[in-house]
């Protein structure tokens, strides 16, 4: 009985915070748009009894999903989101790995401070930090002013309101999520492994590729998923830093919901996004599982 209670808590949690909202969104995605509050029908009328329920089920259909396949805006937005998230993840890895590596090799008394510095940005609002990037990347912003003053460029670069700005924003925002898991794997790595590799004839560089890198693979995979998964559905960054040609599904969803007030289509977009995300989430879970098993 006690065991049951213990297991029940997380399941109730999941039910309340994930499954119920999911079912509501799924239901809305199968409804039709109407001019009412809330702006969709049918609505479940429990007072009508069983007949009312049957009526309600009958009224649900896949129209919205069919609509998503007809307008190429949607699949283009999905693809473009996946691509932007993918490229940003690679850049984040390229930037984050050396940082994590440097932290793990720093003197032990410095590590807590360095870790603190990585986490420090979370102390200010995410929104403010993205706004700050607008100030940096704008045509008359900090970056362009500096480059102009140094004489590296003659006219300001158009960075803000482009996909590049979105990628910069994503890399900046999600960098800690890449650094921390990689740092965790590198930090617990036994340094004598590298000495052993050298002793057996490796150069420093080949010791890195043959020992350090494969041993940090778990951290790399975890970090990549932690960046990739939320980046796909990212909405704030593309709407603040991106331009009209930066197509991301999070932004599309927001517009469907708030500008068009088309809740059913917005819900369908969300459901498909979730379906797309399930694959990397499952892969991520598998990686975590494997890491845990290897750790014991």
């Amino acid at each position, binding site marked *: 009985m006690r065991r049951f209670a213990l297991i029940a808590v997380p399941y109730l949690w999941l039910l309340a915070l994930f499954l119920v909202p999911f079912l509501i969104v799924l239901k809305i995605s199968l409804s039709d748009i109407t001019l009412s509050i809330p702006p969709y029908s049918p609505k479940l009328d429990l007072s009508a009894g069983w007949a009312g329920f049957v009526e309600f089920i009958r009224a649900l259909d896949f129209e919205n999903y069919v609509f998503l396949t007809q307008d190429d805006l949607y699949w283009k937005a999905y693809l473009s989101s996946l691509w932007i998230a993918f490229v940003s993840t690679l850049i984040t890895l390229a930037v984050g790995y050396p940082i994590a590596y440097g932290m793990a090799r720093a003197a032990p008394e410095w590590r807590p401070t360095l870790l603190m510095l990585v986490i420090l940005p979370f102390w200010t609002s995410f929104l403010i930090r993205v706004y700050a990037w607008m100030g940096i990347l704008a045509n008359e912003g900090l970056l362009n002013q500096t480059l102009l003053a140094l004489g590296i460029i003659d006219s300001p670069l158009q960075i803000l309101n482009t996909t590049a700005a979105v990628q910069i924003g994503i890399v900046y925002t999600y960098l800690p999520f890449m650094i921390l898991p990689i740092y965790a794997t590198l930090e617990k790595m036994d340094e004598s492994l590298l000495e052993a590799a050298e002793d057996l004839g490796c*150069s420093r560089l080949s010791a890195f590729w043959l020992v350090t890198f*494969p*041993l940090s693979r778990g951290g790399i995979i975890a970090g990549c998923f932690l960046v990739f998964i939320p980046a796909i559905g990212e909405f704030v960054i593309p709407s603040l830093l991106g331009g009209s040609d930066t197509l991301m599904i999070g932004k599309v969803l927001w517009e469907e919901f708030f500008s068009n007030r088309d809740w059913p289509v917005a819900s369908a977009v969300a459901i498909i996004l979730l379906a797309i995300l399930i694959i990397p989430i499952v892969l991520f879970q598998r990686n975590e599982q494997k890491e845990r098993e290897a750790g014991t």
Partner: protein
Amino acid sequence: MNQTVFAPWDDPDEKPLIQFRNVTKRFGDFTAIDDLTLDIYAQEFFALLGPSGCGKTTMMRMLAGFETPTEGNILLSGQDIAPIPPNKRAVNMMFQSYALFPHLSVRDNIAFGLRRESKDKAKIDERVEEMLRLTRLTKFAGRKPHQISGGQRQRVALARSLAKAPKLLLLDEPLGALDRKLREETQFELMDIQEKTGTTFVIVTHDQEEAMTVASRVAVMDEGKLIQVATPDVIYEAPNSVYVADFIGDVNIVEGRASQTGDKVDVAWAEGQPPIHATTQKRFDRDAQCYFAIRPEKVHISKERDDSRPNVLQGKVIDIAYLGNISTYHVRLADGTMMKAQSANTRRLANRGITWEDEVWLSFTDTAGVMLAR
């Protein structure tokens, strides 16, 4: 014992494989190795013995190339190895922690070093199989390090460091993590492998029994200095100092004043006690401070006074440590000095004559102990 005596250190024509020449190693202002000079010969099984922190690992790391001497130099086959990086040295090390690559199978761990120097897959495979057979790991070749036992891991580490057939194999407390029985088995295995491969082994240990079992010579270290370098029997029977005598095995040490005639010394050591008669080749000044060291198994214990030996002392049994095959008697002499005597338990416990509180006589010959100046 070897049939033909293996003692290259006694042969002036023999060239040492490793030479430490006035090597000093400092970490900041801490001196870990202090002006150390040492020769190690090919095919030796050389043991470094000393308390924790005395600089054993530092010596190994200098041989492997992970540390460079602050002063002095180290020669391998007559060549200064200071400029040679670790990956270019014909030296392999078996790490204290084994340092097996967790992401590689046993086979790949063993092949790791071979793959760095050769592309010939057939030859590598052959060598790996040979190593697997030598260390009896063939059955476990496909497993990862975390899927095998501690003893097997230790053998993988050994196989990996032997695979490249180094001139010199360094073993840093290789058996520390093993339980006693497995450790003893492995010691013999190591000796066997050393004999088969002819590799020179330098082994670090803080277990004196282990050093005595496996080594051709033992170096006893303290605070970065060598105190004595000799064969195990010399270290045990003829330690050069109280430190060595005390470090290796059990010993009774009596401090006193010497008076020497020829090779005979009388040691006056306590009021009302007869002087200890001893034999020595060393010279002691009259009334110079000296130490007489004698192993408990060389002290005879009996209930009756036994005048067949020149030294006879009376005392009372305070404690008996029963170790199965032997018993150690802790005896308090008339002046309060404690002395240990050991005897083999050739009879069953019930038939033994000596028990607690018994008045006993301890006796020993004049050659049973050693005279030490410090």
